[in-house]
């Protein structure tokens, strides 16, 4: 990592880091509302290219909401509102240059619950993104194999590519969802607690997958699991919602630093399991 950060790297120093960090994704002044309720306040975060960024924090602190603002899924919720900007390679994804569908093609998402299309086969699931975006591909078999290999699922399903996606186990389904997202070749992959519905073995497989894909994709992952954040992420952002204050980033920086020598006592308490 070519990142230079002070131990107390936080939102104030984000502007300094912009010059030294190759930002794939940059959120500036993000505030979110559901109806009149404000759930996020002035969140700034730089997500460096080809790294894994973990968003941590107790339930209800707005990490998932923040994640959904990064590829315009937030706006699909009725009554949702948003302020601020998100830059993908310095282009505002909420600006006129990018359509929502194109943005989501470039910034993929894996959800908490595995949701492969149940009526489609494994192969069709992997190719579903291409069908949805009307993308033609020369050799679809090759792409299916590539995406499934990337998602470490190929060995388990290579002989049943025509089986329905819904017939796989939970962990396999989640990796199928990852393969499906990878098949449209996104630059960023957002993961909203991808392992919370999985058993430890499946979790391990998904984590391996994350480490592997981070070679050429930027991964932003929301997780409740401190060990997982430590295992998979390069940098971390700690979200917190306090009484009378909507969710915000308390501290962000290198994962190692955040877990061993956090600048804020609240971070220290949280990563050591004293609340949340």
């Amino acid at each position, binding site marked *: 990592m070519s990142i230079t950060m002070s131990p107390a790297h936080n939102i104030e120093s984000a502007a300094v880091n912009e010059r030294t960090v190759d930002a794939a994704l940059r959120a500036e002044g993000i505030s979110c509302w559901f109806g009149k309720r404000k759930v996020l306040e002035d969140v700034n975060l730089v997500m460096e290219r080809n790294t894994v960024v973990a968003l941590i924090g107790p339930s209800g602190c707005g990490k998932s909401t923040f994640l959904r603002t990064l*590829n315009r*899924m937030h706006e*699909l919720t*009725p*009554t949702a509102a948003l302020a601020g900007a998100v830059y993908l390679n310095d282009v505002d994804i909420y600006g006129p240059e990018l359509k929502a*569908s*194109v943005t*989501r*093609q*470039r910034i*993929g*998402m894996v*959800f908490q*619950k*595995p*949701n*492969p*299309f*149940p*009526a489609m086969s494994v192969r069709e699931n992997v190719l*579903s*993104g291409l*069908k*949805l*975006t*009307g993308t033609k591909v020369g050799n679809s078999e090759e792409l299916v194999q590539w995406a499934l290999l990337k998602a470490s699922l190929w060995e388990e399903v290579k002989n049943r590519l025509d089986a*329905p996606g*819904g*017939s796989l186990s939970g962990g396999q389904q989640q990796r199928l*969802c990852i393969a*499906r*997202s990878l098949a*449209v070749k996104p630059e960023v992959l957002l993961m909203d607690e991808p392992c919370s519905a999985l058993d430890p073995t499946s979790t391990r497989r998904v984590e391996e997958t994350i480490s592997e894909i981070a070679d050429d994709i930027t991964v932003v992952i929301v997780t409740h699991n401190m060990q997982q954040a430590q295992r998979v992420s390069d940098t971390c952002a700690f979200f917190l919602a306090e009484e009378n204050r909507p969710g915000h980033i308390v501290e962000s920086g290198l994962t190692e630093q955040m877990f061993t020598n956090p600048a804020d006592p609240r971070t220290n308490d949280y990563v050591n399991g004293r609340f949340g």
Partner: protein
Amino acid sequence: MTTAAAMASLVVMGLIAIFLFVKAWPAMHQAGWHFFTRFQWDPDGAPALYGVASAVYGTVVIAIIALVVALPISIGTALYINEYAPRRAQRILVSLVDLLAAIPSVVFGLWGRDVLNKPLSDISAFLYKYFRFVPIFHTKALFFGNSFFVCGIVLALMIVPIITAISRAVMAEVPRPYCEAALALGGTKAGMIKEVIFPFSKGGLVGAAMLGLGRALGETIAVALILSINGNIMTNILAPGGSAIAGLIAVKFGEASVNGRSALLGAGLVLFLLTLVVNLVARLVVTRSRPPKGATK
């Protein structure tokens, strides 16, 4: 209590079927199988001719026209309300569609006859002029209107509310995670509708269409007001004439003789069985079409 209520409706259905059968028996017995195969309807002639074939044919043709016209309108409306309309407009649109269902069918019939018949005749002339190579638009008649086509269009408007309401409910049932998955892959709304919503709600949509069909089959007064019943079986849908069971009964019953009434009740029995089967199949399809197994809610 509820069992009793359910039984009551079964009993009423059974009684109606028995009533129709008993009353229709004399005519049906006399005509034999010809009752179902003969075209001519002249119960007071010598010899008396009872044939419901042309009425059954007309009924089905009109209902199919209605369905073909109503289905795209209904599904389009349902999709617009579910997926595109602003939240505040949704409720207004739903009640507007429901309001359409509240219009009495006699009003639809009168409006169809006095207002819609003329422009639809012009459209018929256009269809005849340019598409007469299609058998259903080919006719030797000199006039258009008061036809299967006009009836079908008016009936289409009458069945739009029920098809819209059911297909809206069915399509709203599609689990959101799958819709979100489609959008998160970069799909447009249209893509999501095509790849996720339609495959998921296919069965329910078929059921909605069949319930609409059931209603169109049984519609009486609008047909009686619009169609100039002459008992012909016609392949074309633009010229005046044809027949339809419910319309036939409404028009002929008042002036019918004892024989005639018996025959008309026989026609009613045929209609009763026809709509019963269509509705039963529709209900079955709707209830069978739950999301596939393994689907997360």
